[in-house]
């Protein structure tokens, strides 16, 4: 039989030569872009797969001898916690459960599957799998936060040690891990700001929080949620960051705090940040540093040196714990001694007899979330930092900055894209680009380009809404990706932009190789249509009333 080439006719186009492969003889070059096609299973929801009576596990019936010894095991349960009817869970054999979730896993572009540099601001770095082995150890996985502290000394020690690490990284005096996510951490900091001013009798007077338009919108949102008025600063187009004069126009005796991200989502670092802090302090306000964009400044600069009173990190961004699709994340809030009395309780302390939980904190803002933190992520972040050490963290930052500026150079070679604000400035760890020029020329939106990227097994995110940068694209390559990865990603962007010029409709109607076509985003905004539970879905779309207990769906 003669050897046949693997579709050699498709091996690269003139504009994009085939990707380099092994030089060994007889291996066909791989085409560029990849001829990716995502799986489409039309998989039903697991509740729809339920077959009454089907079982994954059939435990043997209790035999008479055991029954004679143990009696009725249910008799020990108080009547008020016994169900009257079985739970309405789907009934499936094990194979069907496994197959269902494998199919779903094939229907998304997970972080471990694609070159995930397109989810800018999210710091989609590699989460080392060895750290997951640690948290799966029964010695960790089987403990419970209600156990007596004397029986979970190891877990408390890891939390305490991670606090020492983040104190060193931020320069702050105390750190809490209680918040379950970045926005929860920002809210925690705002709650501490409120408690601080209340303790000084100034909460009535200080009712304004200042932020910037390229800080994370959670800063403004959390301030609003906590009852503050919000004043937003916009960047000076030439420098890319707000001017001191703009801040002066916002600061007053009403200022409770400045909540600021630096570098902002443009990737531009505000070099006047210490002057910003000084101005706000002079007016009696506090300064809170949103360090969600900290990946490019680890070991380079700290909240302390700029004079901040508080800061927060997202362990799931900078410190590699998984993002988990809105699942368990973790926020860490750092504060100076002056704010420490207001930290959520309990704090983890080290005493003469070991580690303990301190609930006796009369000025505490209380609880942001149950227990003392998302322990699996505390362990992962601890392991990640310990594996790198101080010099390693700095190398992370330097590599992330290098990757970002290399990718920016490659992206800006593509006609039709620009990096608005602060022209020619190097960026820290991410860039918010604009496809305004390409859009004017072709009518194709940035959104369309990002979706067309999905036909090649990757994607990108535009920006928070409303768009301040027109036709935006936000890329953050982190330290995890190789030069070859970045070249491939930039090549895909160039290829998609070229398609937009050649055949705008092709891009505007994409995707073609994805699990689903476009979805109507209005569904996400309509409480009568969205459904995040099966019960809600049946009630809203199946004409079935919700069960009496279902008041939250």
């Amino acid at each position: 039989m003669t050897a046949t080439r693997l579709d050699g006719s498709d091996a690269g186009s003139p504009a994009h030569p085939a990707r380099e492969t092994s030089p060994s003889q007889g291996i066909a070059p791989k085409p560029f872009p990849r001829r990716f096609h995502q799986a489409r299973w039309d998989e039903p929801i697991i509740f729809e797969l339920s077959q009454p009576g089907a079982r994954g596990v059939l435990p043997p019936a209790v035999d008479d001898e055991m029954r004679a010894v143990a009696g009725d095991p249910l008799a020990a349960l108080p009547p008020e916690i016994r169900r009257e009817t079985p739970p309405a869970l789907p009934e499936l054999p094990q194979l069907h459960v496994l197959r269902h979730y494998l199919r779903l896993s094939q229907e998304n572009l997970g972080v471990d599957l694609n070159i995930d540099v397109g989810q800018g601001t999210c710091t989609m770095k590699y989460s080392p799998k060895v750290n997951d082995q640690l948290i799966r150890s029964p010695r960790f996985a089987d403990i419970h936060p209600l156990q007596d502290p004397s029986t979970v000394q190891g877990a408390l020690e890891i939390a305490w040690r991670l606090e020492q690490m983040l104190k060193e990284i931020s320069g702050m005096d105390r750190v809490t891990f209680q918040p379950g996510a970045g926005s929860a951490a920002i809210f925690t900091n705002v709650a501490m700001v409120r408690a601080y001013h209340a303790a000084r009798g100034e909460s009535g007077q200080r009712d304004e929080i200042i932020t910037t338009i390229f800080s994370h919108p959670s800063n403004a949102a959390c301030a609003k949620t906590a009852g503050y008025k919000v004043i937003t600063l916009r960047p000076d187009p030439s420098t890319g960051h707000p001017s001191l004069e703009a801040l002066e126009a916002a600061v007053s005796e009403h200022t409770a705090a400045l909540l600021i991200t630096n570098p902002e989502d443009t990737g531009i670092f505000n070099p006047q940040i210490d002057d910003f802090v000084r101005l706000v302090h002079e007016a009696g306000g506090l300064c809170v540093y949103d360090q969600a964009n900290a990946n490019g400044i680890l070991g380079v600069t700290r909240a302390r040196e700029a004079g901040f009173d508080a800061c927060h990190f997202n362990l799931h961004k900078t410190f590699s714990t998984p993002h988990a699709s809105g699942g368990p994340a973790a926020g860490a809030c750092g504060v100076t001694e002056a704010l420490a009395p207001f930290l959520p309780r309990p704090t983890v302390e080290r005493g003469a007899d070991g580690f303990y939980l301190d609930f006796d904190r009369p000025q505490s803002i209380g609880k942001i979330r149950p227990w003392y933190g998302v322990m699996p992520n505390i362990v992962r972040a601890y392991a990640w930092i310990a594996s790198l050490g101080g010099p390693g963290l700095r190398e992370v930052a330097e590599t992330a900055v290098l990757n970002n500026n290399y990718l920016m150079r490659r992206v800006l070679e593509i006609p039709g894209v620009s990096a608005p604000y602060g022209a020619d400035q190097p960026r820290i760890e991410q860039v918010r680009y604009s496809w305004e020029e390409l859009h004017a020329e072709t009518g194709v939106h940035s959104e369309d380009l990002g979706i067309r990227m999905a036909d090649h097994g990757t994607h990108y995110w535009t920006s928070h809404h409303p768009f301040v940068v027109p036709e935006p694209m936000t890329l953050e390559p982190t330290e995890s990706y190789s030069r070859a990865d970045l070249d491939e990603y930039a090549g895909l962007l160039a290829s998609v932009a070229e398609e937009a010029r050649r055949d705008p409709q092709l891009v505007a109607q994409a995707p073609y190789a994805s699990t689903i076509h476009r979805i109507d985003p209005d569904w996400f905004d309509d409480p009568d249509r969205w459904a995040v539970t099966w019960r809600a879905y049946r009630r809203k779309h199946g004409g079935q009333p919700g069960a009496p207990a279902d008041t939250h769906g």
Partner: protein
Amino acid sequence: MADSTAHQPTADRPRIGLLVNPIAGLGGPVGLKGTDGPAAARALALGAQPQAGHRVALALRTVADRWPADSATPVVVTVRGAMGSSAVPPGLETQLLDEAPEDPSAGADTTRLAAALVAAGVDLLLFAGGDGTARDVYQGVGQTVTVLGLPAGVKMQSDVFAASPTAAGELVVAVLTGRSRGTREADVLDLDEEAYRHAAIAPLLLGSLIVPAAPQVQGRKSPSPPTEATAVAGIAADVVDGFEVGRGYILGPGTTTRAIAREAGIAKTLIGVDALLWTDAGGQLLLADARADQLEALVRRQPSSIVLTPIGGQGSLLGRGNQQLSPGVLRSVGREGLIVVAAPAKLDALAGRPLFVDTGDTELDLALAGHMQVVTGYHERTVMPVVAA
């Protein structure tokens, strides 16, 4: 009265009214800053090529391409020739009015034919042109129909234009298939082209058209962004919350300041400067469409503030269309007496440019310059740079 190119009934099918200003945009490429009056002939003599028809075709092709297969296909209702049917690409059904433009057509044709299209029954009136065309359409239809401008002119400071022909096409589909976010009032600005050509930009607020609210885009990280209408309602609530009993409030022109007046319980002229007194019982109208001398008298006898919104895409805060707010009035009220309001989208559209003041009094302009807080929503402000023109 109207003939149809197809025989199927059009009763339940969406009807797109279409009017094209065939000479729109002629002046731009040859540097004439507009195409009103004799400028069109000059532009043609200078070698300008008509652009509007091409842009309309692009928009309508987008409509045809994006039209959902499960929706009844639309009918384009228009007039014969360059003001309509010539720009309709193949594949879209048209229905022609008997009325026809004069040859050559003029602004009066736009006004007359826009009214005729509305009389013939359209669900949305799409017009291609610039600010002058918007003005003529406004004079013909007022607020009787939802209108969308397809940008084809030289000056497009009115807030009624889609961002591009494609965007216009997408918006038409969204509106006619029930996927839009409702409608909003949008400013129509009338520019004095002769003044504009001589670099003295003087946009005047003429009225407002009903336009579709911008549709949502995909890929959000955050939930539903507020619509402009929500922002304006928030601004109105915020400003009126801050009103002090016994104080006078002078309201500049614009839809945003009119929303504030409505919140305060009074009816306001759209393009005039009005004044109210805030009392225990709410707003009490003091002056409607006031002149500078009336306002000067008011601020002498009554502690007052001025509520202002930037007009048009240039970021003009004072001196364009609100000259009633004379240097005398402004000096009495002072910089701290200015309450500046704007929906965030209006500030975003400035793309980093500052607001400007041009009161005719250089010293006053310099005193007003600097950074100013602008109310952008309920309990929300943005700091904007203000420069002397």
